[in-house]
């Protein structure tokens, strides 16, 4: 389904009709993901019942949390027709900065200073990315590819070859044990998902982001500020990356310069597998969240089906095949849906 190139008077109704058809189609995309998750769980559960235990799924959900948080931002970036592949390196830099500020071995500042400062820095870097993209007119893939390397380099410099540990006890406790037994990262993810959902469905901003993504030209004609919307999505992504860093990194044994490596690929994969069109304008949050669960499941699934010593060496290849499988299942379901729609029309 291509974007409408020539804005006409009938464009609005056109968009509405298109979006209704897509809503129908996309619902099936999510059904496909849900089926894949369920089927995989059942098959692996039959092989090893431990896989269906509470502990395993609690661990999986905790691992989903940072990916889900950041995917909420990256999804909106992709909806506006842009992309952000720098979130892994940004996470590393923010972890280093946060660690330097609040670790007992470093500056030992209060969390009440360190955490807001980390959030501000994340948001600021996101807004800078957004302004390079919107004001500077540099393609977002180029800007964030540059940042991917630059931020990682900066992190290495900041860390100076040493690791940072001894984060404040309170913060690590919240990350590991959580509030009333629920890790803080899960609570945060729930909050962010709620916020993003409200943003998409209940305030005009959300509709404008989709409008911008489906046709930048007509969005401009409708008087929407492309610059402001893009500053927002990149700033929001930066903010969410900081949030994910704060709630997830204290779970790890130490802060090292390799933190968040390949995280950007995981997030973008989830956004795409979740059904967000890479050309912008389409995509639903629920699809992205299901994709996050599916992608996060792969590692434990491979452990529980016990693929043997030779199989373990193929972990990465198998992960890749899983992604392909998800995409193929998607397109299979989409095609069937499109086919049945044609029948209805006839």
């Amino acid at each position: 389904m291509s974007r409408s190139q020539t804005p006409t008077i009938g464009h609005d109704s056109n968009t509405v009709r298109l979006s209704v058809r897509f809503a129908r189609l996309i619902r099936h995309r999510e059904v496909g993901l849900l089926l894949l998750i369920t089927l995989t769980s059942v098959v692996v559960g039959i092989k090893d019942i431990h896989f269906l235990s509470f502990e395993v799924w609690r661990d999986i959900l905790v691992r989903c949390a940072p990916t889900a948080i950041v995917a909420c931002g990256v999804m909106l970036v992709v909806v506006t027709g842009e992309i952000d592949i720098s979130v892994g390196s940004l996470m590393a830099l923010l972890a280093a900065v946060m660690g330097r500020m609040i670790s007992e071995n470093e500056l030992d500042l209060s969390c009440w200073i360190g955490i807001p400062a980390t959030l501000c820095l994340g948001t600021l870097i996101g807004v800078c990315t957004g302004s390079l993209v919107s004001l500077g007119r540099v393609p977002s893939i180029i800007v964030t590819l540059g940042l991917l390397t630059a931020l990682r380099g900066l992190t290495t410099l900041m860390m100076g070859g040493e690791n940072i540990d001894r984060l404040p006890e309170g913060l690590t406790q919240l990350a590991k044990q959580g509030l009333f037994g629920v890790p803080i990262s899960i609570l945060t993810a729930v909050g962010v998902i709620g916020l993003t959902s409200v943003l998409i469905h209940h305030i005009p901003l959300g509709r404008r982001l989709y409008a911008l993504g489906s046709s930048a030209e007509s969005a401009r004609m409708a008087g929407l500020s492309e610059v402001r919307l893009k500053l927002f999505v990149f700033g929001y992504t930066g903010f969410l990356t900081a949030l994910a860093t704060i709630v997830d990194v204290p779970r790890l044994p130490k802060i090292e310069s390799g933190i968040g490596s390949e995280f950007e690929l995981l997030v973008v994969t989830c956004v795409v597998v979740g059904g967000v069109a890479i050309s912008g304008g389409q995509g639903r949050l629920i699809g992205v969240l299901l994709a996050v669960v599916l992608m996060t499941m792969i590692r434990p699934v491979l452990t529980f089906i016990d693929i043997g010593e030779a199989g373990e060496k193929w972990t990465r290849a198998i992960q890749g095949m899983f992604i392909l499988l998800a995409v193929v299942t998607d397109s299979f379901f989409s095609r069937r849906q499109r086919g049945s729609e044609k029948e209805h029309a006839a």
Partner: protein
Amino acid sequence: MTGTSGEKSTDSSGSRKLRIALLPKIKGISYFSSCFKGAEEAAKELGVELIYDGPTDGDPRKQAEMIEQWTIDGVDVICVAPNAPDVVAGAMKEARAAGISVITWDADGTTESRSFFVNQASARAIGEGLVNTMLQDLGPETEGDVVIISADATSANQNAWIEAMKPALGKSKLNLATIKYPGENASNALADGQDVISKYPNLKGIFGISSVSFPGAAEAVEQSGKGGQVLVTGLSTPNDMKKFVHNGTVRSVVLWNTVDLGYLTIHVAKALAAGELKDGAASIKAGRLGELSIVGDNVMLGDIMVFTKANIDQYDF
């Protein structure tokens, strides 16, 4: 072979300083930073210029680019810790063809790409050392599953250690249930640790054999509340593991002296460039380390070290 004090004086009166380039697998991780500490110490002692640089992501192609650049710059010795021997071999051979001495350290390359390999400890000593430490901490008659959490499936060092661990495990009553490859990724290492704890109810121990997977596995045991039931041992720097040794999740940390490894590498480089170290030599005098043996073309650092609650605080690397 002259002593170090003699070398120092001849060097300072020489026309120009020797330039030695030291290439780690990854720049910016604590393991290699501690090697660099020892290298700096030796460089100061010997009066040579030390260049330390490496890829921050462990990409072997970037290692090859750096070797090519140093060949153009005309340094005297290049010391390489290859991340993928085949990828860097071409650049190393070109450097040798240009008259530069090339040695490997920490991990070996292909034999024709270097003259000597500075070997921290034989794979057998490390593999058997790990298994023996685990058996000692668990009790030699313990039955049950153990798991190895390695680095990447292509990591040559880790693979050699695993091959050495297998026969040693075969002689014990422990069963090697699986081997996981989380890469150099702390989140994956923690995840793999959690998953094997849930998967194998009769799990007695986890070997974390990289500086990322060892703390990751220890963290997983601690967070799952299995401290004391599942024992973790492995290879990492003492600084990374101190907190786990003090809280009892880990009883023993196995490693060589990484500071000494860097120190020895620079001594070997210097001796090679000065013509004091020739093919077929049986030993080398290396400053404060004294006389060390050379087996074939491997300069041997010596034995592995085991750090426990009793001695770990004496080491800072």
